[in-house]
């Protein structure tokens, strides 16, 4: 995806008119390229019942011990729809209306997918608490 994104950047670099930051333009191109690739896989935005409840999170101490690679690993373990919305909302800073437009879903679905993604991540982190030797 990264490779394809850079190919697009070099192909359409002449379309960058110098308005705004180059970084923002590159980011937008990469994001759209990723979305295009993901769309080909037809990700499911169905809600997955994994017995996760969106309850108060009590494993902050575990969270603080995780490094970036471990967090990325946790995100990568999310179902496609959850991961897509989580990345766009949390990491890229898009709001639900923008995400809904980009993914051709409703804003409500986007909210729901994000909530489920958070809940699943919390669940995974809490499970890590039970395996202190592995991540401590």
């Amino acid at each position, binding site marked *: 995806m990264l*490779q394809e994104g850079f*190919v697009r950047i070099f*192909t359409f670099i002449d379309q960058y008119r110098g308005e705004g930051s180059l970084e923002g333009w590159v980011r937008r191109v990469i994001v759209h390229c990723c979305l295009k690739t993901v769309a080909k896989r037809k990700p499911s935005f169905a809600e997955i019942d994994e017995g996760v409840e969106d309850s*108060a*999170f009590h494993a*902050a101490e575990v969270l603080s011990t*995780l490094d970036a690679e471990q*967090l*990325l690993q946790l995100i990568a373990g999310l179902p496609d729809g959850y991961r897509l919305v989580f990345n766009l909302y949390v990491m890229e800073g898009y709001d639900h209306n923008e995400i809904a437009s980009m993914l051709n879903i409703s804003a409500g679905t986007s909210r729901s997918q994000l909530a489920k993604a958070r809940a699943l*991540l919390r669940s995974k982190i809490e499970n890590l608490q039970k395996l202190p030797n592995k991540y401590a």
Partner: protein
Amino acid sequence: MREKEFDQFFRDRLAGHSSPVPEDMWQRIQGKKDDRKAFVLWWVLGGGLVLASLLAGRFWKAGVPVEKVAKTTEKTRENVGSKGAGGKTGADRTAGVEGKSGVEGKAGANGKSGADGKVGAGSDAARSQHRDDAVRSEHRGHASRSGHWGDEKPGISGVRPKAVVWREDSSRTVERVHKTWTLPGRADMKKRLPVRAGELKVRKDITIQKKKRPITLDLYVSPSNASNAGVRVAVPVWKDFSLITGLQYTRVGFPRDRDSVIHISSGHFNNIDLPLLVGYSRELGWGKIGVNTGVIFNLHSWVGGDSATLYRYLPKTAGTSWYLGVDLEKYLGRKWSLFAEPYYRYQASGVSLGFRYIFKK
């Protein structure tokens, strides 16, 4: 931890993070860019081929131009008897002319003018002999009354006569309207193309430069008086598009056309065709649906059978015809598929049916 804090934690922790980039990333990006250039080149090349074939089909006039011979009124005033040819019957004339005008291909009478009663048939006397014969049979009754057939006047460019002149052995002026007939024209040539009712395709896919290169072997069958055999190659060039070309041989019996002289003879047309098509197909899971369109260019055409010598003056190509086919393919497992391709082609529309063997998907 609240939602916002949770999100912010991920944001902060991953903000400065960067994953290592593979060492060969730049080479891969460069390679991809080159691939895209190659796609453009393929399209330019394909478009050029189609354009060239269209131009060639339009301007390539191989062989002798054929025109419709209309009713011709010929006036002649001469006294054949005074020139020493009087008294000859039609049969006499035949012998005489053959000796003079070189029906056997000798142009001995070329220099003779119409005024002396021995107008030469030109250098193409042999080519026009069958027409001479046809008209002679019509006027045989006249010939018996001490008239004779004058030789044919040289036609346009000396290729063939405009008309056959009937002369009587008298000094009277005679006016005759000769038989009208139609020589095979370009439209007739198109009728050489077959109507295919059945078609069996065998397809082999090979992979070149990580892209599928399907090789298609077409074997045609037809219950009518036409039969075909050929090879087609389909090369994917971009996304779901492919360029299709190949070579095919077509054999068609003479069309039965009462307005044409060709119905009086037996024989068949042989054709070597070059298809230049663009194919587009969409994967549907259970099969494919696609459209093939372009031109089928007749490279060479010749006449076979008993009457081959009569039609050797025909153009050596039947020209170009448009082709539009809808390819419907249903997979039968991993290797075989069933397909039907209804198609339109000038004077040769039909439906191709058959099995397709896929060596590699």
